[in-house]
């Protein structure tokens, strides 16, 4: 087994569990980001943590440099999405193109049977095929960002900590005396330095433009410094509150027009969400199938129906920002992830 070890507690325990289960384990840390960052999973300090854990577990450890692929498949699309006014989720692109493609292929090429990561989700074998299921800890479940895994990836993937809660993972790490036991969870986008933030990162790579904030009648109500950073549904930082005193939300982001339209929370409600090309864990649901649809990494899954590239909500829901993934679960087996797709249109 080739275990992707980020230097965090989850992947440390994942490696330890596989060894306990009797697998032959080799650790590998992916160096994905070559630029400056102080928060990501690619700092020298994190690689050292991964290496020290591997030493402690008595397994070999390698570092794979996939910085070019990461630039091409994760960073560039992230920048392009913001430049177009979308709200990307780079973790999904990284799982799709790096961890469960480039890294998985590298592992198979080197003769490993499978790769493992420290993600909180579960892979289950059933007569009908491989299932991707939510992790045991609802607060830490990462099936949302793994929905891009299909049968061929799941057949070669182990997620050993998916059966544990985060507290149990930390407990195992403490019991094993792993140096990463109390390391804080990773936050935010790994390749963006906390010191400069998203704003500075994008400003250096694409233009950020001030925009007018208008209400639904077109009347100006304020300004924002960077239209590229406004997300549909966002409430803060949209200039002065309107005369009505009600909270205002971004309901439309028009980057070329340098305009953000705001409205009340009712204006955000939509009967459906339009999706781009989907990715299915197993087969596609039939049109009209009931689904639970989740529109953010840790948001609620709401009931709806899958209909030819759209989810029709049972109750109107807050608009999903374009670029965000909508991930579908089986209402009869709510831990089972069916797959998902990116929201394409406002609405």
């Amino acid at each position, binding site marked *: 087994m080739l275990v992707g070890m980020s230097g965090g507690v989850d992947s440390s325990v994942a490696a330890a569990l596989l060894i306990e289960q009797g697998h032959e384990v080799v650790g590998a840390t992916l*160096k994905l980001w070559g630029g400056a960052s102080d928060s990501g999973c690619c700092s020298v300090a994190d690689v050292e943590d991964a290496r020290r854990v591997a030493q402690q577990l008595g397994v*070999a450890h390698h*570092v794979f440099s996939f910085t070019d692929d990461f630039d091409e498949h994760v960073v560039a699309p992230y920048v392009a999405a913001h430049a177009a006014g979308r709200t990307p989720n780079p973790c999904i692109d990284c799982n799709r193109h790096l961890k469960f493609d480039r890294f998985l292929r*590298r592992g198979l090429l080197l003769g490993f049977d499978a790769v493992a990561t420290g993600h909180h989700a579960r892979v289950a074998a059933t007569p009908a095929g491989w299932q991707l299921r939510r992790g045991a800890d609802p607060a830490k479940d990462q099936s949302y960002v793994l929905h891009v895994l299909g049968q061929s990836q799941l057949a070669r993937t182990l997620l050993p900590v998916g059966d544990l809660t985060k507290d149990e993972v930390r407990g195992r790490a403490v019991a094993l005396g792993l140096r990463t036991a109390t390391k804080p969870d990773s936050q935010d986008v790994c390749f963006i330095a906390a010191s400069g933030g998203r704003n500075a990162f994008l400003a250096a790579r694409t233009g950020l433009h001030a925009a007018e904030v208008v209400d639904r009648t077109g009347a100006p109500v304020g300004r924002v410094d960077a239209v590229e950073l406004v997300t549909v549904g966002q409430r803060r930082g949209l200039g002065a509150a309107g005369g009505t005193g009600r909270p205002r939300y971004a309901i439309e982001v028009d980057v070329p027009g340098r305009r953000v339209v705001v409205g009340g929370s009712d204006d955000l409600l939509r009967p459906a969400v339009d999706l781009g090309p989907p990715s299915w864990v197993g087969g596609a649901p039939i049109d009209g199938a009931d689904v639970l649809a989740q529109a953010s990494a840790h948001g609620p899954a709401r009931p709806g129906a899958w209909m030819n590239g759209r989810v029709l909500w049972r109750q109107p829901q807050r608009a999903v920002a374009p670029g965000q993934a909508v991930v579908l679960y089986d209402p009869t087996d709510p831990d089972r992830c069916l797959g998902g797709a990116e929201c394409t249109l406002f609405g």
Partner: protein
Amino acid sequence: MAVLDHDPCGSVYLDNAATTPLRAEALAAMMPFLTDRFGNPSGGHRVARAARLAVDEARDDVADVLGCQPGEVVFTAGGTEADNLAILGVVAATGGKAVCPAAEHHAVLHSVQAVGGRVVGAGADGAVDLDQLAGALDDLTGTVAIVSTMAANNEVGTMTPLAEVAAVVADRAPGAVLHTDAVQAAGWCDLRRLAAPAALISVAAHKLGGPKGVGCLVVRDGTPLRPVLHGGGQERDRRSGTHNVAGIVGFATALRLAAEERDEAGARVRALRARLCDRLMVQVGGVVASVPLERALPGHLHVRVTECEGEAMLVLLDDVGVCASAGSACASGAVEPSHVLLAMGVPKAEALTSLRLSLGRTTSQADVDAAAAAAAAAASRLRAR
């Protein structure tokens, strides 16, 4: 208790350009200074004098092998410090500019960049491009204080014609001094002759059978140099800090032995490298030597293996106990496309198929044959997909 994932004694070690096994004689010479003769050579009493004697004798030995006066040897904590002292020290003393080719070791390259120096192109063989160097010196007319060109490249092994470099420098920048990073060359080349035109020479002990963390910078008399490390004024005020007595003694012992064995070891290792190269060409196929072997140090075999990413190749070789390298390892241990190959004009994708097998005095024919067989097995696996 740390666990080793392999037994170094059972390995086929072909990474001698990274570091070499410590010579038994060096270890034996060092032991007294790690135990009974622990004195600080800067003191005035008998314990100090015993340590001082050892450092002075080591200095004589090093000076003899390198072809300089004992007073011109400045002991440092290795090659990187020697390179930094040369570049930063001359620039600080003169206010002039530093110039180096793009394929230098990072210890030189980053030092030159840190003081706002000029980096000039390298030739397709990894050595300095003399025309580009001359052009840069003309362009910076009168302001160049130091030109640094390595005696032999650490990655691909190409030897630099230092006399030709010195002639260009004397012609185009007569006020400038020549520094050479001879860290890779020192174990294989007669620096008395080869580095004679250089005013400053960097050497590291661990590349030639000495311990890590010690080396020297030769500073020929009259060379302008300001210290980088300030303190007690050791090494005639050129490098402060208590002497690493055991390291210095081990360094001198290893350097002297390397010089004594040079002709014999060079011929033997050269023959083994030819055998390894032939075997790779036949058994692996799709193998391109990055520089002509006759231009490289005896132990260096740097090749590109078509369709085989270096990073994956190294894992497969390591798995069967063959230790090699690819490109230059960065701080995290990842393999990055080598700046040397990029400077040589090798496309990035091809640079990532690099494999450096570096032989040393302990390499055997069995090692070479095992490495070729392992590389063949690894390549066929990597190409099967």
